[in-house]
């Protein structure tokens, strides 16, 4: 079976946060395979970039139509997200996903559609980074009656 790391490589993104880079690379190096995906929480390498805020853990990876290794500029792509709550059971809900260019003071030209896939996994469609530069991904998660916002910086060239 083809590994997730091979199917959805992370090579195209420039991580702004060194921690994220180290985390992603370390997990990728472990060479985890598709089978590991089922062990949803905590997220593993197959889930791409791993972000934390408080006790919430979110991992995301791009799903690219051409199976290339980088998020291309000005082309649509989807994201798959894995959420984990403190107990390691996915009861959190991805409420909103968007992206902006802070220096340009605008966001994407397209609105996203979130589809729950079960077990804390979600698919986000309609993403497009239409300009080169610094983008900030923003996820809004609802869990336990509270809304948490997690952001991640991405450099697109």
């Amino acid at each position, binding site marked *: 079976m083809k590994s997730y790391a091979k199917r959805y490589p992370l*090579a195209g993104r420039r991580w702004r946060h060194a921690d994220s880079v180290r985390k992603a690379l370390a997990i990728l190096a472990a060479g985890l395979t598709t089978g590991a995906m089922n062990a949803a929480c905590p997220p593993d390498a197959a889930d791409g970039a791993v972000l934390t805020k408080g006790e919430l853990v979110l991992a995301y990876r791009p799903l690219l139509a051409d199976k*290339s*290794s*980088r998020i291309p*500029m*000005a082309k*649509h792509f989807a994201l798959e997200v894995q959420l984990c709550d403190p107990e390691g059971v996915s009861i959190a809900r991805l409420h909103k996903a968007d992206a902006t260019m802070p*220096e*340009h*003071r*605008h966001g*994407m*030209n*397209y*609105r*996203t*559609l979130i589809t729950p896939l079960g077990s804390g996994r979600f698919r986000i*469609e*309609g993403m*497009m980074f*239409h*300009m*080169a*530069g610094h983008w900030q991904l923003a996820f809004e998660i609802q869990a336990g009656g509270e809304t948490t916002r997690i952001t991640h910086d991405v450099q697109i*060239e």
Partner: protein
Amino acid sequence: MRRLGRAALLLVLSATTCAVADVGDFTPAELSRIAAHGPWPLSWTPDPGNRVSGNAAAIRLGRDLFFEPRLSANRRVACASCHDPAKGFQDGRITARGLVTGTRNTPGLLNVRQQRWFGWDGGHDNLWSASLRPILDAKEMGGSAARAARVLRSRTALDCHYRQAFGKPPAAGDPELLVNIAKAIAAWQETLISPPSPFDEFRDALTRGDTRAAAAYPAAAQRGLRLFLGRGQCATCHAGPLFTNGEFGDIGIPFFIQPEGVDPGRQGGIKRLLANFYNLLGAHNDDATRNNATATRHLRPEHRNFGEFKVPSLRNLTLTAPYMHNGSLATLREVARHYSELDEDRLHADGERILKPLKLSPQEVDDLVAFLESLSPSKALPAPHAPPTVDACHAP
């Protein structure tokens, strides 16, 4: 492997730069960005939304209809009246002139297959829909289904190619007739691809390590290229092999229309698109998966769309003057000066924040123009592609 490939390419590019004095001292980052503007031409794939895309009979039919003035109400205006093959399929006018004079500059059609949105306001999400609008528009050609059916039946080749492409005779009462005609015209336009330019030769020479060939690219164009990639930030929007991100922006070109009125640009385009019976969300999209409708499905109208116009491709500019959505800039030098002296007060309050006057020196204006000119083919464009009449359609 792809990372390794990119690294190897950068090494080759860097080595090339160091070895030849006549090739600008581009940084590895610049070399990577230069490489991203190619290769050219892009690979061609059929349009999944057009079932006759790539079909020889449809291409031949579309080509003949493109030059057919009898489709118009006064029998004098053809698609080619505004989209002149000798001018990059543009007309050289400030604004288009069909049955009456319009308010926007005619877009060229070379490489049109590679576009996501069509028209300055992106009012169409597919080429066949964009091709149908001027045929029916009372200000452009003023055609109709009945007129189109008469034209098709009037010539054996037209009638025959229509039957071959669509498997039925052209009938005025057929609700598919007009969209079929548009799909045939689109199939022909998809074959309009510009040849490589001096920039492409430079870019390709760098990537294969051919320093002698790379050195043939003029120094002024190289300086203009560096400005384009760097301080000008032009490649932020004019990206990729087509030199456009295919989206929209407000760059301070006035949107007032004489004698009074305004052109809402992308804001109006989105409204027209979503109300259009022939958009990719509709029944005439031949892609059963609707995967080709992603952009339309996810569109997000914004306040800033007012006054935004499509970011045009920068290929073939020497063929398609004047410039901008209203044809208000006559030369590439005026375009460079526009960005040099950008009036920030004209920009939308919610618009792009990185646009600042570049304050270019006269030398820098010359260099930027030299680079832009190098994006046009140095050789004459080949005659419009016209596949031979399909055998069975030869007149007896």
